[in-house]
């Protein structure tokens, strides 16, 4: 089916476009881009006063299927993504069973085709069972559709294993993503270690638990001449190490989440378990460093680390509650309101970090760009529309989001995947 998007402000950092253009879509691909396209199509989208961007890609989500469908499914996660302005989402392997074999990867790929409304890109485990001992069959997994490898919340502690994974990834030109955490340093911690953890009497997770692993990974990636992606950057020291590594042309990239930018450790005064996340919400000083790293290019992409948990799972003692924030439906409005509308970063840079760079890092050749022949994935934004975050309106199965009640300006109003409008829902 043909589709015509008219009069939008088209911004594509990949091809350096920022202009009012019409886009013709045919058979799921971009067929034409011109200042004025006049042709008979079954549907025309009037994008006047709206921004048309290449479809946003979230490199870091947890979709819970297979195994924990009561928290989220491929379908509900994809609906949340569509509403949140994401046309593609990559999902971490900590499902049950773990995505460490072709069976699970193929299940996710085929089920997503049947049920999901956005592209779902599986990230497979680095090691079998995420146990950190034995590498998975990375070539087979890549053939089955794995776009990257990560042990995520059970990070590889053994440096020799990480070294081998980095070396082997070169064969596949695949990306290793690491949740950087020395689990001996973080021990049983539940929040950022520092003044506030001492004040609130909660066990701390020191900044060093992240920073030591960031440093290790940079050293290993340099030696292996391989690519390493640092998940959810949270502390000043990590940002500084990545900045230096980039200046030495080491192949390191990094991502940041909304919660690590817009919330801090002192917010935990309420003991609200919706603020319990790993890495934990850090200090004001860390947040300032992350903003600086965002502006100077040390941080490459935005990611949500969407981690759905049920209300009952979160309605318990802070120490015992699971880590994680449900983020797909609030990320884009938060970034637009807090960063773009406040001129901390430009709209172009925001789009680059939400689409262009994630596509490049994950090797998605036909995504993250608005060019003739590319996939017709779009995120359409209204920079002036205001919303009040309401967790009760979520598409996600879970509600664990600490931004409930926040007033934000700038929202995704339409998501197109393969030439099909997936949001607003029809």
């Amino acid at each position, binding site marked *: 089916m043909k589709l015509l998007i008219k009069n939008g402000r088209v911004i594509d950092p990949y091809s350096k476009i920022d202009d009012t253009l019409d886009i013709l879509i045919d058979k799921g691909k971009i067929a034409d881009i011109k200042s004025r396209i006049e042709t008979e199509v079954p549907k025309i989208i009037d994008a006047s006063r709206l921004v048309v961007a290449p479809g946003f890609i979230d490199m870091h989500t947890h979709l819970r299927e297979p195994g924990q469908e009561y928290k989220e499914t491929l379908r509900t996660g994809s609906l949340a993504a569509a509403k949140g302005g994401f046309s593609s989402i990559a999902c971490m392997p900590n499902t049950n069973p773990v995505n460490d074999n072709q069976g699970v990867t193929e299940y996710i790929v085929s089920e997503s085709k049947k049920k999901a409304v956005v592209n779902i890109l599986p990230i497979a485990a680095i090691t079998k069972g995420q146990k950190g001992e034995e590498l998975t069959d990375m070539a087979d997994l890549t053939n089955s559709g794995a776009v990257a490898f990560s042990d995520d919340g059970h990070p590889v502690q053994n440096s020799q294993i990480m070294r081998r994974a980095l070396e082997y990834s070169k064969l596949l030109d695949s990306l290793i993503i690491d949740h950087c955490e020395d689990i001996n340093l973080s021990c049983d911690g539940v929040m950022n270690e520092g003044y506030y953890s001492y004040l609130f*009497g*909660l066990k701390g997770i020191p900044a060093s638990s992240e920073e030591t692993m960031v440093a290790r990974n940079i050293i290993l990636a340099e030696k292996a001449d391989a690519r390493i992606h640092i998940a959810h950057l949270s502390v000043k020291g990590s940002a500084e190490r990545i900045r230096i590594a980039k200046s030495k042309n080491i192949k390191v990239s990094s991502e940041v989440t909304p919660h690590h930018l817009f919330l801090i450790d002192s917010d935990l005064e309420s003991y609200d378990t919706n603020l319990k996340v790993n890495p934990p919400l850090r200090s004001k000083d860390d947040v300032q460093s992350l903003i600086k790293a965002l502006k100077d290019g040390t941080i490459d992409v935005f990611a949500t680390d969407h981690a759905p948990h049920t209300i*009952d799972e979160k309605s*318990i003692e*802070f*120490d*015992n509650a699971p880590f994680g924030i449900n983020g797909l439906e609030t990320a884009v409005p938060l970034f637009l309101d807090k960063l773009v509308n406040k001129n901390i970063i430009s709209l172009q840079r925001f789009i680059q970090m939400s689409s262009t760079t994630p596509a490049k890092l994950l090797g998605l050749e036909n995504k993250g760009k608005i060019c003739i022949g590319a996939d017709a994935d779009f995120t359409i934004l209204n920079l002036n529309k205001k919303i009040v975050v309401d967790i009760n309106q979520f598409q996600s199965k879970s509600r664990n989001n600490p931004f409930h009640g926040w007033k934000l300006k700038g929202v995704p109003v339409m998501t197109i995947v393969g030439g099909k409008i997936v949001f607003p829902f029809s």
Partner: protein
Amino acid sequence: MPFNQKNLLGIQYLSPDEIITILDTAESFLEISKREVKKVPTLRGKTVVNLFFEASTRTRSSFELAAKRLSADIVNFNLNSSSVIKGESLKDTVLNLAAMNTDAIIVRHSCAGVPHFMSTFCKSSIINAGDGFHEHPTQALLDAFTIRERKKSFEGLKTVIIGDVLHSRVARSNIFLLKKMGANVVLIAPPPLLPPEFKSLGVNIDFNFERGIEDADVIMMLRIQLERQQRNFFPSIREYRNLYQLTKKRFARAKKNAIIMHPGPINRDVEISADLADSVKSVILKQVENGIAIRMAILYLLLGGKDRETTN
């Protein structure tokens, strides 16, 4: 001075005036426990629950006696928090208790913030009897009461707290209270148990016992737990004892009329030498006695206040 709190979640959330009100109220209750008939009808008809998810003899019986001496009805629940995790959730347990129209729930739990969490959904008054490493407000209040008996004023008083400050809710509540009342506080512990961030609470820190105890008016010892050594916060109990035990020699560096306090239970000859624990300088048993008056005051102020209805 009216007392308008519904809950007692921690010293952090009290004003100096409210602290004085509690201490003055306790003063008036002290005498009841010395009567032949140790009972007044003040809280007759009120129901109080002791909900303890952690072992306790002192605090639990102190609250129980306090409630009984005010004629309130009290029920004890001793639950192992780990079995609760597997079975009924804390929230369901508390909602069930509240459904029995209890007026106050006294809670002790190994997780910080549990009293706050309970106060978000429970209509009964919540009294914190110790939450994780966070707060133990009635301990700090009874300590303050005991100090005031001996020292009359908190202003400028040098109070040293020695031991496992990092993992101590007693230390935290005492720091908050003593700072609010104008005392000087020095914390003494091995560096792994005394992070520099504690200084932001307005206290001084010292790793050296001999230096830190110099001219102290009040010495508070904390219980040291074997588990800390297993986690390498210090190398051995033997070395801890050598460096941080309160001995006569170290005590001699404090002021002549200094008093020795300990929240109990004490490890004799570990953090404190047995002879000092039993000496006239020790007010350890006085603390226990005063604990009942403080807890009577808390129950009275939270449950018995005349304009309770309007302050909810």
